[in-house]
């Protein structure tokens, strides 16, 4: 048998169980109802509504008195149009720690220095610690874990002059500030004040400025006068990958 289409030219596809076009898929879920025939019927209905028809409830068992767990197999009616698939592209690749380390080694031939702080009166170091502490966040190790990064964590309630001074003394390549408290737009005002202070004090030699916090909108970077803004759910790996990207861009720019 010969295949008529190569994967590249295919436009419409359905899930593959054991025959092309059978649309077979499996799923599992829990419903908050007691175990029994009625529960199986409910699972079947849900699967049908999800576009799985016919659907087979191949397994169910009770979890306590009030819940039932199901495994369902069936054919889905949906068709995927590959031409309509849009992938959001990040302008930089996500790198594993070893690649971050080797990229820094290659670009800078020294360690990349990161200075981090919670500025203003904000005492919530949860965010900056999740990014910097080796303990990390969401299963990823913090920036301290990266061999080629030197991390200086100044902690909470750091004044802007202190931050500028520390960045200068440590020859920071990047400055990370975290803002959690947003009363009266404190996070925006503090960040603007910070970026202005850096530009005034260091001008062209200003380190990369990065702001992070749950209430920041990543599109606000220009307004805030920073190079990059990271919002809720950012992981250390994303920040590290960005650092590599931004530093190499800068280097090209200056070269």
């Amino acid at each position, binding site marked *: 048998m010969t295949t008529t289409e190569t994967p590249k030219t295919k436009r419409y596809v359905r899930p593959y169980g054991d025959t092309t076009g059978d649309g077979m898929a499996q799923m599992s879920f829990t419903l908050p109802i007691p175990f029994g025939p009625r529960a199986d019927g409910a699972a079947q209905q849900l699967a049908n509504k999800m576009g799985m028809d016919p659907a087979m409830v191949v397994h169910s068992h009770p979890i306590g008195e009030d819940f039932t767990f199901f495994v369902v197999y069936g054919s889905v009616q949906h068709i995927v149009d590959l031409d309509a698939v849009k992938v959001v592209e990040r302008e930089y690749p996500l790198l594993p720690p070893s690649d971050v380390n080797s990229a820094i080694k290659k670009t800078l031939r020294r360690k990349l220095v990161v200075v981090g702080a919670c500025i203003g009166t904000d005492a919530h170091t949860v965010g900056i*610690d999740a990014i910097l502490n080796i303990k990390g966040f969401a299963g990823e190790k913090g920036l301290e874990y990266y*061999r080629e990064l030197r991390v200086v964590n100044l902690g909470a309630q750091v004044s802007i002059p202190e931050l500028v001074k520390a960045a200068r003394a440590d020859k920071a390549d990047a400055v990370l500030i975290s803002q959690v408290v947003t009363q009266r737009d404190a996070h925006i005002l503090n960040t603007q004040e910070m970026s202005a202070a850096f530009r005034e004090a260091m001008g062209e030699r200003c380190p990369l400025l990065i702001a992070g916090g749950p209430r920041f909108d990543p599109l606000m970077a220009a307004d805030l006068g920073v190079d990059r803004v990271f919002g809720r759910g950012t992981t250390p790996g994303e920040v590290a990958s960005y650092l590599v990207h931004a530093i190499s861009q800068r280097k090209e720019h200056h070269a």
Partner: protein
Amino acid sequence: MSQTRALLDLDPKVVATARGLAAKAAAPVIDLARAHTTVAVERATLRLAGITGADTTHRAGDVPWVNRVVDTVREHCGLEHGVTLPVFHALREHDLGSLTELAEATAAGQIQFTIPTGRAATSAAKAARVAVAKGLRTVDRNRANRDKLVTKLGDPPRRPWIYLIVATGDIDEDVVQAANAARAGADIIAVIRSTGQSLLDYVPEGATHHGFAGTYATQENFRIMRAALDEVSKEVGRYVRLTNYASGLCMPEIAVLAGLERLDMMLNDSMYGILFRDINPIRTFVDQRFSRQVHARAGIIINTGEDNYLTTADAVDAAHTVTVSQLLNEHFAHEAGLPDELLGLGHAFEINPKVPDSFRLELAHALLARELFPDAPLKWMPPTKHMTGDVFNGYLLDGFFNLAGVLTGQSILLVGMMTEAVVTPFLSDRDLALANVRYVLDAAGSLREDFRPAPDGLIVKRAHQVLGEAVDLLDRIVDDGLLNAIADGTFGLMKRPADKGKGADGVIEKADGYLNPATTLLDEGATK
């Protein structure tokens, strides 16, 4: 546990050398811990003496009264003599009825703390001892109560005990999940703390409902969960144990609260805070010693955190650092009065499954821990690093983890989740995970009887090799000094100098007249 039959034929002389080196490495740090106190130790002492509640009017939010008092004493007359002398002197001078009244007066700026001398000092010391002894008797009563409940309801029917985590952020929701987990077979419930609590230099107050990826450890939350588990223990006919975290900047206070509310196990590692949270080394060692003394008194099983090393370093290359840390944790714990049966030394199943013979290597490492610490209730931690989101493969890996646990006689088994690194576990994930454990225990629970690794096989050789590497590393640590070794990045790759890190400003060198009735009563084992 102690019925362990030696399968590895470890050389008793090498084992003795390893223990001797661990003791030598720990000695200077123990001297340092004895010579210092910390703001957290002083706060813990006042908590034993009965101070509770928080200043709800403070502009920074609820500040525990104990923080207000200790900070003010430090400002007025320093903490090098201990907090109890100035506090109980002020209580008498101002004729106040309770420490809470004193705290309110302190907040109102009505108290000027001084170090009493002569007869005033003697009577302040006496009053402090009476108050702290009362708190310790509550801890003693809780311990006796636990023993009574265990006798009445019984321990779990078999080893390993099954340890399950709940973490919703809301204590009321935690209670529901914990009760369900116990009904489904969990013997131990651990409530994970809110992200970042370890770096708070105070213990939040009251019942809490808004944690980040975990629930705040507070005295009230402890009480609520223990009461709920007492109910469910009756229902399931075995005593369900409760675990929380005595780590971070408030380690001693959390230890006291755990003793006051009858928690049963506490995470408590001698170096975790230093390495993974960048807490000052001296602060950690001082806080750790006090907290372990309190745990010893409360009959609480500690769980150490060796699994963390293997999440940062390679589980094969760094296997010996786990052994070294276990030996150090053991020595620090013994020194603080914890007997072997309260030493839940940790280790983990974290070898890359793509490494050839990975399961045999896991067995070697797990068996080494078992035979080095035959009487300790070892805590066996599931794979996390190589759980990828392929939940089917993860379920298999957890099955092998469970099998390694029963084959090597582990005592406490933390249930692995196939959705590790994907989502916080679904109700069904927990149910499936428990089914996995049950299957392995039913199918192979006694397989240990038939398990005899070949005397010159890979498992035995590997265990000997790891022990040898541990001895070499301990040798270097003794030469270098433990604090220097930590500063140089020997453990978990982190470099932590002794004068740096969070909470360093909360460390105080004791003066000659330093007095702490809690330490005295704990050292003496006295109740009055």
